[in-house]
């Protein structure tokens, strides 16, 4: 189980995937309704508080099982309801697949793909997601843990066969930490520390390799996307691993060398769980020194880089959920963004307060007080028929 199983890098799917339908029930301020979507760019527009971001969040939950907005998913249950439920119909080529996510006030949660519990096996049936939310700026300016998690999700999207690497490392780390604690408390001997360190090292080297290769795939695209978005200085994305070990024996030896200190602290102080994904502009850390605008641009450039890399590796672009990206971009950049999004096909859902903020969406949907309705301004070209939305009785 070394890096040699990089076979996960082979394209696993060259079939087009898109979201055909979204159905929500009891979800935040959205009325019970069904929304039909089509390929290309769909603009969701409406005043603040209308429910645009809620639509993106609903899609994200059904696809990934996690909210892109909150850790406390119970918040999504509409104030006057006992259960929130989102169904998404995905078309993979011609075959439809049903995704379902629901949660009730008792905390009972379901996340199903075609009626079965969603697991890594059916990752191929769920489109990869790339999400931009203003709240997600934390990704750029927050602590490294968020960037590590993000990078590992990208690894899983790029190479589904390597999706286990992060979890495997996490399990081994939790076990070594538990053992350190037990040894420190005198509840166990340190006899099996060697074994746990070997297992942790084997998982750690694999994870670090995934990250290194993912960043290598992203870095050039990140630089060019940032330049296109108007960043004058060199934009750089770098994996800064805590350990440079490339073989499990090396990392195991490093862990052994830290054992004394780790026993004193009761946790593991070395390894890939301390890696950083460094983002810098002109050699300065965007996290520490970037302006709000630079941080937004960096995040957007990261998403574009991910989209390009995914397009290249899997021929299927991720579904992009872009919340409120237009407001701070000038018209040139907006046009550029629209062009970028159209590249390679695929689907994107964007939100904006005004319909004019995006020139040529494939469809525009107005959102008003929790209802979505297709808006037919004559200005919108609509080849192949409009996207429709219907409000359930």
């Amino acid at each position: 189980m070394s890096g040699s199983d990089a076979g996960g890098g082979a394209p696993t799917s060259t079939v087009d995937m898109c979201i055909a339908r979204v159905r929500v029930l009891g979800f935040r301020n959205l009325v019970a309704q069904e929304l039909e979507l089509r390929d290309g760019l769909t603009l969701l527009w409406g005043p603040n508080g209308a429910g645009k971001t809620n639509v993106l969040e609903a899609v994200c939950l059904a696809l990934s099982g996690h909210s892109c907005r909150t850790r406390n998913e119970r918040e999504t249950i509409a104030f006057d309801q006992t259960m929130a439920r989102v169904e998404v119909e995905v078309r993979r080529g011609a075959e439809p697949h049903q995704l379902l996510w629901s949660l009730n006030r008792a905390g009972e949660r379901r996340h199903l793909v075609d009626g079965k519990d969603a697991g890594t096996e059916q990752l191929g049936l769920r489109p990869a997601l790339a999400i931009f939310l203003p709240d997600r700026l934390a990704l750029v300016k927050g602590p490294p843990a968020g960037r590590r998690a993000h990078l590992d999700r990208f690894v899983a999207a790029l190479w589904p066969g390597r999706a286990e690497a992060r979890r495997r490392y996490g399990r081994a780390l939790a076990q070594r930490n538990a053992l350190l604690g037990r040894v420190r408390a005198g509840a166990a001997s340190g006899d099996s520390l060697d074994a746990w360190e070997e297992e942790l090292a084997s998982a750690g080297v694999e994870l670090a390799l995934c990250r290194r290769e993912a960043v290598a795939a992203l870095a050039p695209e990140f630089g060019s996307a940032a330049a296109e978005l108007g960043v004058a200085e060199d934009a750089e994305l770098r994996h800064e691993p805590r350990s440079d070990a490339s073989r499990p024996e090396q990392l195991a030896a490093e862990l052994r060398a830290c054992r004394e200190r780790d026993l004193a602290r009761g946790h593991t102080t070395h390894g890939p769980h301390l890696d950083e994904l460094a983002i810098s502009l002109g050699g300065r850390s965007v996290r520490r020194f970037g302006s709000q605008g630079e941080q937004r641009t960096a995040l957007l450039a990261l998403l574009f880089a991910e989209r390009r890399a995914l397009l290249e590796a899997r021929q299927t672009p991720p579904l992009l959920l872009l919340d409120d990206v237009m407001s701070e971009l000038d018209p040139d950049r907006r046009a550029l963004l629209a062009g970028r999004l159209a590249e390679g096909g695929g689907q994107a859902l964007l939100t904006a307060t005004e319909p004019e903020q995006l020139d040529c969406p494939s469809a525009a949907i107005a959102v008003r007080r929790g209802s979505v309705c297709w808006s037919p301004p004559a200005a919108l070209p609509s080849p192949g028929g409009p996207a429709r939305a219907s409000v359930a009785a």
Partner: protein
Amino acid sequence: MYPGPIERLISELARLPGIGQRTAQRLAFHILRADDAEALGLADAIQEVKEKVGLCEVCFNLADEPRCRICQDERRDRSLICVVEEPSDVIPIERTGEYRGLYHVLGGALSPIDGIDPDDLKIAELVRRVSDGTVNEVVLATNPTTTGEATALHIAELLRDRVTITRLASGLPVGADLEHADEVTLGRALSGRQSVPGPH
């Protein structure tokens, strides 16, 4: 809701893995309707299994005598020991028909999170078995999970230099249990087992 004895039967049945309240009720009423011989046959079987089945004194597999059938079988290759986590892991390996050695059942896998250390498993017993000189090879067939891998690594370290140590070849789905692996995959894993590399 029901008379006391029925409630008791339902709640005992509901404690079984995979049996919910509704199924427990259905089973309880089935037992109630069944004729005496059938129902008491079940009770008797439970009693017998608890009284007569214990662990083999050599390999810790399930046994209804001091030694299990496999340990008693003269045709088995005594120079080969296959180490598994649970008695239920013996069955799929036997079904492949490819393995002719003996077993050693650890009774679980290392898991500090659950407070399971080497002392809680039959590891010292394995080391003792191996040191009598008749054993040439130990096949580590713990599950390909985090805990199973660490357990295999720990045992490999203890037995290194004494015997040849092999690990079931990969091909088993990572994270899967032996118990649920199919015969063909398991057979392939057995015949393709690999020697565990020496010290770092």
